[in-house]
């Protein structure tokens, strides 16, 4: 066990898999010699050589396209999209190809690839370095979408994603890379060091996909969150004193619906929190599912706290970010309803 930041944990997952499995390759823009703009692949090219860890041209569609071809030829590519805001040029390859290949060939060809991308705001990145596009993947059948909220899960889920035979979209909340950020941007930065979820085994382990984690048991309401919003929700629970049960979804789709239903059936109230824009966000699916499965237990409307339906503004970042105040207000509304 060592204490790792989320960056180190993610790197460690790739390191472990590169070491264990000669078919794993890692590539993307600036990931080779330099080690990635967030340093997630730092040192891996030096360790495994340039034909296993390398830089690519700036062509997201191209790099996902070659990854699919490599997957069809027996490799297990792990590619990085430099920012989630830049996956759009690769969308056709992701949706029409990676997600459909097994189905359309009835299993004759498959593309087991993992697409990593840093997502989310809170770093003054403006509208093109802050997006959370998860709903654009959860709508696509054939894809798995995963988002960890801490170093332990990040490594375990990334290992599981690389080992998974389905294509996985692995979203990394970049604001959590260096510490468990709870939305209080005006307070001193909290590092990962010392946090129990930053205790990460150096070797191989995995966290199963499709399994949510109850981060905070509670009885007053159920909170469905993932990524940075798990920490924001914890802060909101602390600050409002409301006994929230906070579920960290970890795997967005396919989803651990059971854990959700069990909790909402118990609490009768539900708040969904995500950073992505609200309309047609993944929160909509969660709300629809919860009311479908827990209708007769619900005592208040399910609320969604989410990014506003605007691009992520640069100077108004903290008015946009769904911080503890907004989340806490929703807790209050839902418990008082």
């Amino acid at each position, binding site marked *: 066990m060592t204490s790792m930041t989320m960056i180190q944990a993610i790197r460690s997952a790739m390191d472990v898999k590169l070491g264990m499995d000669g078919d794993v390759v890692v590539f993307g823009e600036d990931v080779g010699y330099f080690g990635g703009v967030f340093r997630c692949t730092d040192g891996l090219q030096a360790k495994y050589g340039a034909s296993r860890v390398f830089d690519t041209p700036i062509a997201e569609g191209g790099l996902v396209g070659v990854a699919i071809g490599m997957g069809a*030829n027996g490799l297990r590519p792990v590619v990085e999209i430099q920012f989630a805001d830049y996956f759009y040029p690769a969308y056709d390859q992701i949706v029409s190809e990676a997600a459909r290949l*097994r189905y*359309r060939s009835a299993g004759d060809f498959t593309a087991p690839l993992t697409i990593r991308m840093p997502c989310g705001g809170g770093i003054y990145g403006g509208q093109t370095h802050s997006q959370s596009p998860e709903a654009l993947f959860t709508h696509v059948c054939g894809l798995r979408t995963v988002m960890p909220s801490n170093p332990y899960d990040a490594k375990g889920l990334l290992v599981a994603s690389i080992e998974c035979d389905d294509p996985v979209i692995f979203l990394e909340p970049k604001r959590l890379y260096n510490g468990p950020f709870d939305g209080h941007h005006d307070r001193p930065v909290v590092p990962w060091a010392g946090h129990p979820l930053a205790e990460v085994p150096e070797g191989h382990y995995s966290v199963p996909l499709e399994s949510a984690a109850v981060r905070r048991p509670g009885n007053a309401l159920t909170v469905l969150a993932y990524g940075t919003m798990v920490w924001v929700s914890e802060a909101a629970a602390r600050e409002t004193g409301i006994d929230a049960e906070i579920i960290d979804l970890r795997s967005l789709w396919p989803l651990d619906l059971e854990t959700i239903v069990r909790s909402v059936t118990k609490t009768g109230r539900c708040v969904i929190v995500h950073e992505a824009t609200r309309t047609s966000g993944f929160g909509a699916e969660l709300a629809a599912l919860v009311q479908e499965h827990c209708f007769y237990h619900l005592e208040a409307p399910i609320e969604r706290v989410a990014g506003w339906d605007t691009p992520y503004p640069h100077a108004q970042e903290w008015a946009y970010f769904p911080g503890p105040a907004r989340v806490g207000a929703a807790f209050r509304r839902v418990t008082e309803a």
Partner: protein
Amino acid sequence: MTPYPPLRLHVPEPPGRPGRETDFSYLKLSPAGAVRRPPVDVRPSGTEDIVDQLVRVLDDDGRAVGPWDPKADPQLLLAGLRAMLKTRFLDARMLVAQRQKKLSFYMQCLGEEAIGVGQALSLRPDDMCFPTYRQQGILVARGYSLVDMMCQLFSNERDPVKGRQLPVMYTSRRHGFFSISGNLATQYIQAVGWAMASAIRGDTRIASAWIGDGSTAEADFHSALTFAAVYRAPVILNIVNNQWAISSFQGIAGGEAASFAARGVGNGIVSLRVDGNDFLAVLSVSGWAAERARRGLGPTLVEWTTYRAGAHSTSDDPSKYRPADDWGRFPLGDPVARLKKHLVAIGAWSDGEHEAAMKAIEAEVVAAQKEAESHGTLASGLVHDASTMFDDVYRDIPAHLLRQRRELEDLS
């Protein structure tokens, strides 16, 4: 300031339209044997001077001439002829079957048979092809079962892709034939990735990528050229320029100001423009490109000049946008007739043998159809069970799809 006249938009027009005969002089032709044959280890810029010429082997008398003569074993040529004929018969029968509603849709490759067949015969069986919907010749040449092909076309209960795809969207990993996508061009960059994987793994298998003239405008074409050049991927980048993309002439795809082969040179890729209706040229250039790839010398791009003789698909009516008799006037002729003429000229074949071969092949296709139809057709409704629809979305069926499958089952 100088007075400039108002600007005007240039919109390319084809050299022929219904009621106005095509002027084929836009096709820059070279005489057979005229284009030099660079060594296989030619540098990326080494085909710059010949990229707009047209590599040809067969002259008008059916003789093989010049440096690109593959000096092929006549048995190989005969195998090619048979595969081309079989492909043509298959297409013809399936067009009829489509009109009979036994399949929902069909796409023939009439006039382009030499390209897929010739390249398939130049590759090793385990080299991987990433075809479009007009390379059925590859499957035929590699001996894929006609019955399996037709089962796919009929979407019946033996359809290898379980009825999930439109007709012609074959897949056969065992025959080095990548699953065809309905989305144009996507497979071009995947072929490069497959080839890169070969290089990463220290393998000796190479990839063959396919795209149409129209589809070169898509992003994946550019990605493919970039990645192939950067990593010197062992891949043959084929462009089938059959002059049309549904109703759009190749000028709309950018074929007016430069050949498609020139795109390769612009990306630092060894590139050639070749007579795609000349089976010997196809064999020769494919073999040369394969040798380059396998020797680690990097990608080769080949623009095959040919003509889409038929409609784009069974949903199309080309008489709306081009002269009806266009193919008959296409200067590079019919690839089957040209190869036959050559074989007869070298004494390896005769009209009688040809006649007999046609009959035998037709009978084989008819028999295959009969067998395939015995497993059902889309019209007959004998298709894979609806519940199979939920398989293969993921490796294992997740909970939500099990629920949906149950919902479907409960309904009936």
